[in-house]
């Protein structure tokens, strides 16, 4: 039998892990773009909030933040529902995992995008304005495509770190690949084997994503000449 009959559970877990990682990537991507915009804006309040956000989040371990946000969010919800006289709403570990991971890695993405925005030569934006483009047009036609190119190495790095950080979400009760393999190991008395299986699944995920990212990097840097040594 496939993995002693635990194959389907573990594959389901792997799917949950992948979904979690992709959804959190989307959330953190959006937060990162917004955060970079805030950090580069001339509004001191926005700038201050964004700087505080990236400094605090990147200075505290992700697991601590995860537990802090997960438990506090649940307690806050309980207060809210009690106050409204509603029934208790239990937070779904998947949804809170997505938002927590997205919120944490949004800080790393903010820094990545900030650096990428700064790397777009200023003359190009001026040229766009000189052509009579609106600020949205200069953003979407000139800045954004180049920001993606400059940010890609940073994005790949953040993605690999985030993919590995999803393993921690099993600690707040999500049935992902780690939880599935721990359970499978406990009930089959083959803890060693199933830990190796979980590790192998992560290794496959990181290897495949590094191949995809390498391809993307080649694709997005067409037209960029590299110096040959």
């Amino acid at each position: 039998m496939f993995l002693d009959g635990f194959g389907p559970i573990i594959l389901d877990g792997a799917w949950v892990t992948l979904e979690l990682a992709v959804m959190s990537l989307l959330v953190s991507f959006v937060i990162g773009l917004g955060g970079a915009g805030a950090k580069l804006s001339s509004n001191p309040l926005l700038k201050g909030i964004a700087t505080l956000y990236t400094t605090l989040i990147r200075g505290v371990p992700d697991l601590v933040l995860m537990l802090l946000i997960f438990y506090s969010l649940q307690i806050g919800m309980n207060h809210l529902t009690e106050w409204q006289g509603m029934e208790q709403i239990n937070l779904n570990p998947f949804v809170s995992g997505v938002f927590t991971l997205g919120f944490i890695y949004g800080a790393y993405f903010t820094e990545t995008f900030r650096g990428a925005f700064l790397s777009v030569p200023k003359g190009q934006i001026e040229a766009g304005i000189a052509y009579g483009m609106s600020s949205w047009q200069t953003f979407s036609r000139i800045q954004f495509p180049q920001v993606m190119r400059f940010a890609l190495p940073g994005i790949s790095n953040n993605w690999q770190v985030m993919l590995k950080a999803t393993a921690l979400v099993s600690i707040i009760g999500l049935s992902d690949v780690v939880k599935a393999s721990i359970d499978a190991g406990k009930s089959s008395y083959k803890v060693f084997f199933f830990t190796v299986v979980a590790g192998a699944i992560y290794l496959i995920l990181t290897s495949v994503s590094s191949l995809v990212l390498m391809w993307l990097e080649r694709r997005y840097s067409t037209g960029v000449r590299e110096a040959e040594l």
Partner: protein
Amino acid sequence: MIDIIQQYWKAFLWTDGYHLSGLAVTMWLLVVSIAFGFCASIPLAIARVSRSKWLSRPVWLFSYVFRGTPLYIQLLFFYTGMYSLDIVRDVDILNHFFREGYNCTILAFGLNTCAYTTEIFAGAIKATPYGEIEAGRAYGMNKFTLYRRVIIPSALRRALPAYSNEVILMLHATTVAFTATVPDILKVARDVNAATYDSFDAFGLAALIYLCITFILVALFRKAESKWLAHLRPMKT
């Protein structure tokens, strides 16, 4: 918040009355695993850049596996996985070693940070300017002296910014230690949370301590960089 601090500040900082706990344990985990990773990664980095495939390939595989899997799984592997094997339980030394959460944690953390540090140092060694190596050879240094006097000192200096990043990531990674029953800061915070149901204050206090350590480490590394990387500082214009 103040109640929690009054009742648990000792547990958060160094002792729960019987054993070391909190900050002391976290710092101990960090220092021991970083020291182990540093010492092991220098020879491994030299092997990683070696021209012989028999030396470089195994090191590549080691760092690929340890960098491609989450630390939490590595800890589970060494803590619960190893101990479930009959061989480990039957051999006395192994049994003693893997029964202790501390040993497994240090082993997993040390190997993990060693893998990342090896890559950082190997990258720095590869980026050594060729002229420096030629100059060493011209002085008649043999390979060992060349590494000891020229390549390693210069590579370690240039690796400092990336290495400081790795140390801070390792500090953040030590938080998984509580899953192996090691009483670090997060374990204390979880106990406080279980005792008081005051999650925000319990974990917030832990977050604050980690934030302070991070800031202190960043400041120390800045100092180290201004000392050892003074020759690479951009010129003031």
